[in-house]
């Protein structure tokens, strides 16, 4: 082995480094910067960014099928195990009593899903094939695991940009929503105070809820069963109160490990070849639109309910129906509270917010059902 052969061997890393790799590494650093210094969904964007970094180091082989990232991808993304495990933990963190105390709030969880379909139409208009357009639309579910679950089934090749959009914009809700709130609601509407007359919720109710919901949704929308059932399993582990160690494990080890591996594996799909194209740009743009459409639809539906109820319902809680649990709910409450320091609609907003979480999963399943039938 003389220098003639040695040199290229030494520089193989640099000599195989493409401009695309440079761009993607820059993108990775931006994601990590947002995660660390802006605290935008750090538990997901940091691993995604780091995975992207690794995917663009030439000849490292970590993204090969037998490389670490390939192993994680095949173990948890292709099998859809990771998003479902995350949902077990999320379910154990959600409190459905505000929704159960005022069931009509569930209606607000439906309107907030319009963004999914509106975005699908736009994506079709931009020339995306149906399976991809639907996957892009599900960014409008504004729920990470749902977006990843559906995209993996319909268009795994778009997983990375969809996941990045879903989680990045999730944190921009406080920037995206308030202007739309002010734009679409009158001061009078924002000042509407809501009487809080909750039904008393028995523990029995809390325990039966996840079981009944799994059955009802499962029978109506079989495609939504995996997502809704794992969400409800986690919730049951919590409310049952008899399996504390499983509840703790779901809320900690399971969700943490699944989140770290999911982030790395998805980030590692962001190779220059697959990610650097106009479609990625379009997807990121469409994702932003999806968030806006959800909010607009939610607010408009809130206004309708406001009028129909004779100004007994504050339309702001409509914006909480997009899911993005629990931020959208708190944001709606805060906005009303900023308008009038004596106006408290937190419980109503959280009810609409958890309804949005359910609506997102259901809408995702319905979309999966319709589209997988058509393609």
């Amino acid at each position, binding site marked *: 082995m003389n220098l003639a052969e040695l040199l290229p061997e030494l520089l193989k890393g640099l000599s195989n480094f493409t401009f695309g790799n440079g761009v993607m590494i820059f993108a990775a650093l931006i994601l990590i910067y947002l995660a660390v210094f802006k605290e935008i969904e750090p538990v997901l964007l940091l691993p995604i960014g780091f995975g992207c970094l690794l995917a663009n180091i030439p000849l490292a082989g970590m993204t090969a099928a037998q490389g670490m990232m390939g192993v994680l991808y095949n173990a948890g993304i292709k099998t859809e195990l990771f998003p479902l495990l995350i949902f077990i933990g999320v379910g154990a963190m959600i409190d459905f009593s505000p929704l159960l105390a005022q069931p009509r709030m569930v209606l607000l969880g439906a309107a907030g899903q319009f963004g999914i379909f509106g975005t699908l139409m736009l994506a079709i208009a931009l020339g995306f094939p149906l399976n991809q357009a639907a996957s892009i639309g599900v960014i409008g579910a504004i729920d990470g695991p749902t977006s990843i679950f559906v995209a993996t089934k319909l268009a795994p090749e778009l997983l990375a940009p969809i996941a990045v959009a879903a989680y990045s914009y999730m944190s921009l*809700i406080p920037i995206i929503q308030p202007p739309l709130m002010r734009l679409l609601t009158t001061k009078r509407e924002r000042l509407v105070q809501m009487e809080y007359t909750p039904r008393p919720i028995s523990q*029995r109710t809390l325990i039966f809820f996840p079981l*009944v919901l799994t059955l009802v949704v499962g029978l109506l929308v079989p495609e939504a069963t995996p997502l809704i059932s794992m969400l409800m399993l986690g919730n049951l582990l919590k409310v049952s109160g008899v399996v504390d160690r499983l509840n703790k494990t779901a809320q900690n080890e399971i969700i*943490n490990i699944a989140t770290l591996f999911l982030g790395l594996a998805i980030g590692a799909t962001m190779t220059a070849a697959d990610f650097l194209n106009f479609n990625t740009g379009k997807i990121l743009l469409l994702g932003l639109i999806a968030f806006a459409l959800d909010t607009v639809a939610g607010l408009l539906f809130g206004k309708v309910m406001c009028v129909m109820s004779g100004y007994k319902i504050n339309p702001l809680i409509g914006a909480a129906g997009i899911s993005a649990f*629990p931020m959208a709910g708190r944001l709606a409450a805060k906005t009303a509270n900023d308008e009038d320091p004596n106006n408290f609609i937190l419980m109503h907003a959280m009810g609409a917010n958890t309804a949005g979480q359910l609506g997102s999963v*259901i809408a995702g399943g319905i979309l999966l059902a319709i*589209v997988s039938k058509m393609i």
Partner: protein
Amino acid sequence: MTTNLLLALQITLIGMGLVFGAILILWLTMTLLTKLTADPDSASHAPQPVSAAETETLAQAAAAAVALAMAEQQLSSAHPLKNPPTAIVSAWQLGMRTRQMTEKGHRF
């Protein structure tokens, strides 16, 4: 292209229709569930609305809740590089996004 758009429109109509349908069924289900599984004792005064006094206290409770949440945000946004709330609190979704909310909230 137009056919595709018509198809997309059709999907949207059917889709949103089904979503609202499913949600309405959920509404019905939840109403029945809460009625059927209510505690016998409390079930009695379940229908009639709570008294003004109660509403008062509830409102205050809510006020406290909001205040607390906001305080928490101020606190956390004060040290941008501190850790998220402990794992016991559902930090995964909760912690990050909530903080974001008020931090960004200041810009308006």
